[in-house]
C-alpha cells in the first residue's frame, strides 16, 4: 500500500473534467430518454447553487489537505455560521456588515483552535477536528431545536437569489474565492510553503519554513471558507439552521470533491481548479438524480457508494500512505 506512483508533475489532474463531461453527457442522455431536460435554465441555476455552497467549503478544504491536514469540523462551522449570521441580523439590513464580520470572526477563531490543536498539541487532524466538531455539536444540540434568527432581506435578495443570466451571484463569489485561493497557492510565499509542508514536513522545516504558522493559517482560511458557506446558506434559507451543515454532508462531500479534483489526501499535491471540477461533478450527479426523481434515500446510498468509489480510484493512483 505504501508504494508511491506519483502523478506527473502537472499541477492538477484533468481527469475530473473528463469525468465531468462524461457524466453530463451520460446524464443528459438518460434524462432526455426519461423525458426531462437536463440543460434547462432552472436545472442549471439550481446546479450552480448547489455547487456554490459545496464549492466554498471545498476550496478551504483543499488548502488544509494540501498542507497534509484535514478539517472535519466544517459541517458544524457552517451550521453555527448560519445561526450567527441570521441571529445577529435579526431581519434588519442595517446589521448586515456587523453580522458578516462576526460570523467570519467566529469561524476564524474555530479554525485557529483547529490549527493550534493540530500543530502545537500535535493531535492527529482527523481527531482534532472531529473533537472540535463534537464540541460545536453539543452547543448546537443544546441551544437550538429548529431554525432561528432572520437573515437580512438585502442579503437574501443579493447573495441568495440574484443572478447574472443563469449564473447565481453566489457562484461568482465561489469563482472569486477559488481564484484567490489559486493565486495564493501559485504565486505567494505562503502557498509555496503550504505545499512544501504538505509534501514533507521535515524537509520544509529544515528549509526554514515555519510549519506550525503555515498550517494554522491554512486552518483559519479553511474555517473562513466554511463561514462564507454558512453566510451563503443563511441567505438562501432566510434563517439560521442548526443542522444544515451535517444534513448537507458538507464534511464528507468537501473531502470527496477535493480528492476527486486530484489533490492527494496525504498532502503536498493538488490544486483548486481540480477541486472546482470535483464540486461540479458532485453537483451534476445531484442535478441528474433530481431530474430523474430518484428517491432521496436511494440518492444517499448512491452518494455513499460514489464517494468511496471515487476515493478508491484516486487512492490506487496517488496514495503514498494513509494519513494516519
Amino acid at each position, binding site marked *: 500500500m505504501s508504494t508511491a506512483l506519483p502523478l506527473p508533475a502537472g499541477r492538477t489532474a484533468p481527469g475530473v473534467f473528463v469525468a465531468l463531461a462524461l457524466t453530463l453527457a451520460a446524464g443528459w442522455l438518460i434524462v432526455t430518454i426519461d423525458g426531462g431536460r437536463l440543460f434547462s435554465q432552472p436545472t442549471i441555476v439550481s446546479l450552480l447553487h448547489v455547487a456554490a455552497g459545496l464549492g466554498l467549503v471545498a476550496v478551504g478544504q483543499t488548502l488544509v489537505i494540501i498542507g497534509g491536514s484535514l478539517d472535519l469540523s466544517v459541517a458544524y462551522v457552517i451550521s453555527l455560521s448560519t445561526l450567527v449570521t441570521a441571529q445577529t441580523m435579526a431581519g434588519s439590513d442595517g446589521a448586515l456588515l456587523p453580522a458578516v464580520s462576526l460570523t467570519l470572526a467566529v469561524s476564524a477563531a474555530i479554525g485557529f483552535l483547529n490549527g493550534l490543536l493540530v500543530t502545537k498539541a500535535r493531535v492527529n487532524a482527523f481527531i482534532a477536528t472531529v473533537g472540535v466538531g463534537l464540541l460545536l455539536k453539543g452547543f448546537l444540540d*443544546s441551544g437550538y431545536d429548529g431554525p432561528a434568527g432572520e437573515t437580512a432581506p438585502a442579503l437574501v435578495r443579493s447573495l441568495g437569489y440574484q443572478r447574472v443570466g443563469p449564473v447565481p451571484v453566489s457562484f461568482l463569489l465561489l469563482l472569486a474565492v477559488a481564484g484567490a485561493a489559486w493565486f495564493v497557492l501559485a504565486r505567494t510565499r505562503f502557498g509555496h510553503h503550504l505545499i512544501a509542508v504538505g509534501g514533507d514536513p521535515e524537509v520544509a522545516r529544515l528549509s526554514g519554513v515555519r510549519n506550525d504558522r503555515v498550517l494554522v493559517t491554512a486552518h483559519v482560511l479553511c474555517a473562513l471558507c466554511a463561514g462564507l458557506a454558512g453566510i451563503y446558506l443563511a441567505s438562501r434559507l432566510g434563517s439560521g439552521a442548526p443542522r444544515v451543515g451535517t444534513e448537507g454532508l458538507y464534511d464528507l462531500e468537501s473531502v470527496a470533491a477535493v480528492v476527486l479534483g486530484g489533490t492527494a489526501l496525504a498532502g503536498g499535491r493538488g490544486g483548486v481548479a481540480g477541486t472546482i471540477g470535483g464540486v461540479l461533478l458532485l453537483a451534476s450527479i445531484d442535478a441528474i438524480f433530481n431530474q430523474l426523481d430518484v428517491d432521496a434515500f436511494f440518492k444517499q446510498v448512491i452518494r455513499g457508494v460514489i464517494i*468511496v468509489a471515487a476515493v*478508491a480510484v484516486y487512492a490506487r493512483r496517488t496514495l503514498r500512505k494513509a494519513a494516519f
Partner: protein
Amino acid sequence: MRIAEGRRPPARILRSRPGGVVPILVILAALLVLLTIRQPDFLAPPSLMSFLGRSAPIILLAAGQYFVIVSGEFDLSVGSLVTAQVVVAARLIDSEPSRTWPVIGLLLAFGAAVGLVNGLVTTRLGVPSFITTLGMFLILVGAVYLWSDGAPKGGLTEEFRRFGRRAFEDVPLVGRVPYALLVLLAVAGLAVLLTRSDFGRNLLAVGGNPRTAELSGVRVWRAKTMAFVVSGLAAAVAAILIGGYSGVSFQAGAGLEFGAITAVVLGGVALGGGRGSVAGAMLGALTLETLFALMNFYGVSGALKSTAQGAIILLAVAVPSVRSSSR
C-alpha cells in the same frame, strides 16, 4: 512517519505503562465517589445492576472499536450499523416468535459482512478508513430508510427483547442480574482471549508499525480486515441489546460511533494504533456512561453529551501527545 518516542521514567506512585488501565480506574473511582455523594444508593445492587445492564451496549461497541483503533484505523459506521440491525430485525421478525433465532443469526452475519466490506475497501482499495466507514454510514442509513419507506415496520418478539430488558430475578446478594450484563461478561471474556491470541498480538504490531509487521510476516491487510469484522460483530450484539432495551427506532444507534471512540480513547488506547488494552477500552466506556449518569443527576442537558465527548477526546489525545509525537 511516526517518530519513536523517548520513554520517560514512569511516575513513582502510578507505575503505569502507557496504555495501562490504572489512570482510567482512578477516573472511574473519582466519578463513582461524586455520583454516590449526589445519589447515595447508586452503588446499591439494584441500581448498580441496572446501570451495568444499560451500559452493556456501549461497552461492547468500545470493545469492537478497540480492535479497529489499535490496528490504526477507525470505524465510524457502527452507529448506523446498530440502527440498521434494529430496523432489519423488527421487519424480519415481524412479531413472529419462531423467527427470533434465525434472525439473530442473520444479524451476526450481517454485522460481520459489513465489517468485511469496510475492511476490504480500506485495506485492498487503499481508501482511508474514515472515508470508507463514513461512506458505509451513508449507505446503511439510506438503505434502511429506503427499505422501510421512512418508518420502521414490523416488531420485535418478547423472546428477542428479553436480552436487552429482562434479568435473572432473586439472585442472592445482588438481587437481579440483567441478561445484558451476562452477555457483556461473556463477550468481554472472548475479547480479552482474542487480544491474547496471535491475532490480537499481530494487530498491536500492525498498529504500532505496519511496515515492520509486514516484514515480520504478518499479513497486515488480513489482520486489519479481521478487526473490522470483529467491530461489526460487536455492533450486531450491541444492536440486539439496544433493540431489546429501547425498542425500534431510526435513532437507535445515533451517535454511538463517537461514544465508542471516546470510550476507547478515554481507556488509554492510542489513536493511530499500536498501544492500549481492550480492558482499558471497556473501562473507558463504563467511565463515560458513569460521567453521563453524573451529568444527568446534576441536571445537565443530555444534548451536551457530545460536547463532553469532544472535550474528552481532545484532552485525552492532546495531553499525552506532549510526551509522544504521533503526527
